[in-house]
């Protein structure tokens, strides 16, 4: 296309699509704004679109990654629309496809992922907890398509509580409910420290909500548990786990064994904790708040010196498990932290806590997890199933 056409198309797409998304993506996302977002994006679930890590609202960026549009050179003296996709979930989305269609195929689409500033990070601040301010929701584009796409079950309130659903400390965006355990004769919820304890910032008794706050959870309507204990994160030495427990409130129904739609959209039944050593090549499954049920393959184990970026800085983890997604999907994304990872026999092997945007044989990123036996030992807990 001619340069003028490319510039006009770019301007039109910015006005119609990109700006409404950026405006609607201001946090906290409510159930209503998630539905609005879905209309703007052409059905990409907000949970997938905004696979933000389970983290404190206080440190959450106000602007989320989506798309960048520009002009690229085409063949000869022609120009093309340049679409730079900053989230994996958007790459094959209806939205990007409709942009390519508007450009009559004359578009150069590339996944660029996260763009970091190339300067040193400021030292992290350790401030007291303050609640994220409510921001006004922006109007949705008038030409947005209306879609019937529903919010996935794992982002909604689920009673009885199920493994794999959205959950979190009330000051945390949202993570995943890993499993139910017994600790000192009480039934507790198992997840990560950064999901239930807000990276060591929680006080015993703090409210845990299901769904997590990012998915519209509130203390009034969705409190299911209270923070109990966590394995403290060590900013200087080697960590082995990112794990915490919350005591289940009385009267909250829970299903300790159901693994809803975990493999081939069929339910599984948790078969307890695996006693076998984790090995490379093993097929694994998980259900998480952002990517739902996914299948993966163990790519490495006994990983030491795994450096992971947290609010409190870079932390080191030893003896970790590495997993890649099988097929054309990532095994996890932000918000899947705390997911229980099971083997083909549905026996639990690990607790998901971190990941990368790139790497692995499909290029869609690697996931990191703590061996479950270590998690249970360190929390003095027994897996219920």
């Amino acid at each position, binding site marked *: 296309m001619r340069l003028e056409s490319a510039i006009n198309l770019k301007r039109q797409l910015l006005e119609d699509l990109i700006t409404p998304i950026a405006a609607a993506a201001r946090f906290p996302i409510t159930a209503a704004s998630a539905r609005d977002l879905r209309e703007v994006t052409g059905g990409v679930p907000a949970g997938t679109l905004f696979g933000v*890590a*389970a*983290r404190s609202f206080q440190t959450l960026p106000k602007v989320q990654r989506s798309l960048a549009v520009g002009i690229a050179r085409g063949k000869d003296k022609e120009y093309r629309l340049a679409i730079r996709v900053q989230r994996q979930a958007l790459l094959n989305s209806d939205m990007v496809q409709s942009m390519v269609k508007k450009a009559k195929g004359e578009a150069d689409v590339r996944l660029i992922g996260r763009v*970091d500033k190339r300067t040193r990070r400021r030292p992290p601040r350790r401030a007291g907890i303050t609640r994220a301010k409510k921001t006004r929701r922006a109007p949705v584009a008038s030409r947005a398509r209306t879609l019937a796409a529903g919010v996935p079950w794992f982002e909604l309130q689920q009673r009885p509580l199920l493994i794999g659903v959205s959950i979190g400390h009330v000051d945390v965006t949202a*993570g995943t409910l890993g499993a139910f355990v017994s600790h000192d004769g009480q039934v507790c919820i198992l997840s*990560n420290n*950064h999901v239930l304890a807000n990276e060591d910032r929680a006080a015993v008794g703090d409210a845990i909500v299901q769904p997590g706050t990012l998915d519209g959870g509130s203390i009034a309507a969705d409190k299911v548990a209270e923070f109990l204990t966590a394995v403290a994160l060590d900013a200087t030495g080697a960590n082995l786990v*990112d794990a915490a427990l919350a005591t289940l409130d009385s009267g909250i129904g829970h299903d300790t064994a159901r693994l809803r739609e975990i493999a081939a959209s069929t339910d599984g039944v948790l078969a307890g904790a695996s006693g076998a050593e984790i090995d*490379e*090549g093993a097929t694994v499954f998980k259900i998480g708040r952002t990517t739902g049920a996914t299948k993966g393959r163990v*790519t*490495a*184990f*006994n*990983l*030491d*010196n*795994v*450096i*992971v*970026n*947290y609010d409190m800085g870079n932390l080191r983890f030893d003896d*970790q498990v*590495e997993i890649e997604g099988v097929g054309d999907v990532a095994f*996890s*994304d*932000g*918000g*899947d*932290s705390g997911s229980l990872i099971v083997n083909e026999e549905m026996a639990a092997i690990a607790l*998901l*806590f*971190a*990941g*990368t*945007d*790139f*790497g692995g044989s499909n290029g869609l990123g*690697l*996931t*990191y997890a703590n061996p479950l036996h270590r998690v249970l030992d360190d929390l003095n807990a027994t897996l219920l199933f």
Partner: protein
Amino acid sequence: MRVTQITLDQARAAKRRVIELLSGSGQVVGIGITRVDGTYAVKVNLGEALPGDVRVPAEIDGVRVRIEVVGTIRRR
């Protein structure tokens, strides 16, 4: 064609050597055990490519060393 089978203990010993070799390299974000061509090997994960003057041997004591640039690891 490689025929030697590496035991897990051999791979772990080689892993310790690689950790010593790369200690102080700010680019390393994980060193663990994997398989290459069906036998145990050492995997080195990097946040970014190593500087030109840092070389990692392709094998240590007969154990293959596989290097992958995985980028920044973030809590999810």
